[in-house]
């Protein structure tokens, strides 16, 4: 006991120890916890020379660090703030899919073909969800995919979507969708612009480029080995016929776009009326081609602006309530409001260019790319779906 007591007495009285011990402790702590990374520099032999020789740095070759492998395999996975999903994969699992047996035919429902409904969601509209739920296509053949931007509005949309999805998927088994995939974009994404700015010509290119990016991210993350059809349905499409999928698949077209209209209250006639909304469904015109040929490489043509008069025949104006709803028309550009695509078109590589592709961008560029891949693009001028009316907020 005596030496111990003597030692503790020394500790209490000696000033030098008072100062040095905490400092040493701190230095030790610093080195063990914070400085560690710098010491585990990569050592390796490159071209018969130790790395330090090449880098003209000198580490003593007899230290234990000297022979560390080239790469450190210490796990630096941030376990606290990370919501990485570690996939649980069955042991020895080898999945085998024969894509030769995958078809998209006009009798989609009878042949049990799976359809993937994709929606970039910036705002959750209850009407959209209710419309989705009233579709008569068998739900076990429907997969849903959503992507939300990384913004506070995206948060709101996600929260609302979460509640809605939760309700349906926890319901009776036969009422559930076969699969729902919800993605969060990494970037601020496609809704950083307010409603007013949204249609200004200057911001169109940027807006549609980020929209194209969102569509691609959603598409290539969700399209699977069972998918036969892909239906692009915008989050603000709030009214479609209940047999939408059956009607559109029956045409058996590679790319088929419905005509997007909007219901509104006509102040003059004092009654409810409809008006065309989506002008991205069009046929190419000579004027349009001529305009494109004079443009610089990174310029785009967009429809519906007085600055660019293309004189393209727009599908929106071909609507005639007296004609058959099954009437088709050939298109060169499509919009994304409600467009049905055979999965093989996307699988062959047709995507939404986020850069000017033949001076076209997003869905219009997609139509062009599908045509480059020898697919035909069609529209249904008399088959109407309705866009929500934008209230002036």
């Amino acid at each position, binding site marked *: 006991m005596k030496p111990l007591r003597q030692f503790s007495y020394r500790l209490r009285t000696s000033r030098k120890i008072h100062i040095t011990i905490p400092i040493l402790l701190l230095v030790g*702590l610093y080195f063990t916890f914070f400085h560690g990374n710098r010491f585990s520099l990569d050592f390796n032999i490159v071209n018969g020379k130790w790395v330090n020789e090449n880098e003209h740095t000198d580490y003593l070759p007899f230290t234990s660090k000297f022979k560390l492998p080239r790469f450190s395999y210490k796990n630096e996975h941030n376990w606290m703030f990370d919501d990485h999903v570690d996939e649980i994969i069955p042991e020895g*699992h*080898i999945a085998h899919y024969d894509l*030769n047996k995958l078809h998209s035919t006009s009798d989609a429902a009878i042949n049990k073909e799976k359809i993937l409904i994709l929606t970039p969601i910036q705002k959750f509209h209850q009407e959209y969800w209710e419309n989705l739920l009233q579709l008569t296509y068998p739900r076990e053949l429907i997969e849903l995919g959503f992507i939300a931007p990384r913004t506070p509005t995206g*948060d709101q949309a996600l929260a609302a*979507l979460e509640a809605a999805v939760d309700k349906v998927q*926890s319901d009776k088994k036969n009422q559930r969708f076969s699969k729902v995939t919800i993605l969060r974009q990494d970037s601020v994404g496609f809704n950083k612009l307010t409603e007013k700015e949204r249609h200004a010509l200057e911001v169109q290119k940027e807006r549609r480029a980020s929209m194209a990016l969102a569509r691609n991210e959603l598409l*290539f993350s969700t399209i699977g080995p069972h998918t036969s059809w892909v239906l692009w349905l915008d989050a603000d499409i709030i009214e479609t016929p209940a047999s939408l999928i059956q009607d559109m698949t029956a045409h058996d077209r590679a790319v088929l776009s419905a005509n997007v209209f909007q219901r509104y209250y006509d102040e003059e006639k004092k009654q409810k009326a409809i008006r065309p909304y989506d002008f991205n469904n069009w046929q190419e015109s000579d004027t349009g081609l001529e305009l494109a040929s004079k443009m610089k490489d990174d310029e785009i043509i967009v429809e519906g602006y007085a600055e660019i008069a293309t004189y393209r025949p727009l599908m929106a104006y071909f609507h005639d309530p007296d004609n058959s709803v099954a009437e088709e028309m050939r298109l060169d550009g499509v919009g994304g409001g409600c467009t049905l695509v055979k999965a093989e078109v996307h699988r062959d590589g047709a995507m939404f260019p986020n850069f000017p592709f033949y001076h076209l961008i997003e869905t219009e560029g997609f139509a062009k790319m599908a045509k480059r891949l020898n697919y035909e693009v069609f529209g249904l001028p008399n088959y109407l779906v309705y866009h929500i009316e934008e209230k002036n907020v």
Partner: protein
Amino acid sequence: MKYKNGKRSIVTPTTISIAGTLLTLLLLAKLFISNFSIGKIIALPITLLSLIFSPSSFSSSSSSSSALFKAYVPNFRNVPGVEFYDLGNYQGNKDGWQRNDRILFCVPLRDAAEHLPMFFDHLNKMTYPHNLIDLSFLVSDSSDNTMGVLLSNLQNAQSQQDRSKRFGNIEIFEKDFGQIIGQSFSDRHGFKAQGPRRKLMARARNWLGSVAIKPYHSWVYWRDVDVETIPRTIMEDLMHHDKDVIVPNVWRPLPDWLGNIQPYDLNSWQESEGGLQLANSLDEDAVIVEGYPEYATWRPHLAYMRDPNGNPEDEMELNGIGGVSILSKAKVFRSGSHFPAFSFEKHAETEAFGKLSRRMNFNVIGLPHYVIWHIYEPSKEDLKHMAWMAEEEKRKLEETRLLELYDKIWEIGFDDVREDWTSERDAILKNIDLTGENGKKIEVDWSDDPEDNQAPNAQLAQNENMESTENPQGDIGRAKYPKEVPLEFDPDKN
């Protein structure tokens, strides 16, 4: 005692403890803010403590790279059939193997049964954590037993004793695209075949890529099976460059008669003025392919930039790339870049993938001094030459065999007695005085009387006896020994 009564020390226990607490808090805060994690066991109590003391650090150290706020994460844990992924978590880190980044390993296969064992050997030796590697194969238009060999190899890989050697998710896709051209080296590499062939291969790659990629993949690695030599650390070597798309240099070994080694992959190049001019002169659906004299582009190729002593870390900007070994961030494919199956800026497949990715503002990089080795497959000319060489070798072998046979026949049919003659001549001559010193005339008794020659031939007889034991055949020859041998007879000139 002296100290006790002296001036008060600043270093009282109270101050020390206060300073200590402050410092500890500071350290913990720093620990928290930096992404440095020191294992769960040590960190858990520390983090709990720091949560109590400094809750502000919690929100500021959110893992999301851009936003200060923590993005909303919906909870679908108990909802069947619903998945949520924050793509921000799967953008690809440069030290992905330390951060649980999953790789999608894509392999297009066609009549590849013979290469698969070698491929799986490489795969098993890879140092990237195997459980983070998801394998996906596309088997198309195969006439050999590619599927069977693939399945048995996969089963072996997944039933290994060492669990850490097993791979993640495995998916095999089958899709036939219809074959336009054969798969032999010359079929595939002939000039005319290139355009349609590249477009078809692009379709195959796109089908594989689009169905295989999942939201949780951070990286995508495209690999051909017929790579002979590849570093085990290939993933880490490419990944730590932190580029969107990166390819190594691809060479192949050659037989000696072709000069040992040769650049293989000429699809990795930088765009040149000549290339752009050529592209402008072609029609919309034309496909430029590198490495053929028909299209002289004068582009700098990655393959020719190789210096065996160069730094393997050196990078080079590329416009078109080859498909032997491509590592790319999954976000490249997720953003829509793919292998165009149409003529994109007058290119198709992997070369157009490079161009398209650059168009979408991703960086495309090649490593000129970091080389992997493709197998050597002989072309039709090579095969002809090799057939000729084999024929020649066979012919030479036959020739030597015949020569040996002739020699044997000669030996059996004709007894070589020259040696005997030499020794006999020596034996005879040594007893003869050639100088004629004694004035004596040399007299030879040619009569047949044996007794007369006996004395001078005694020595010779002894020699004969000795030799006859060695060469029994010689006896026969000696029995009819020619008697009239002239002294100046030289058997060598016979």
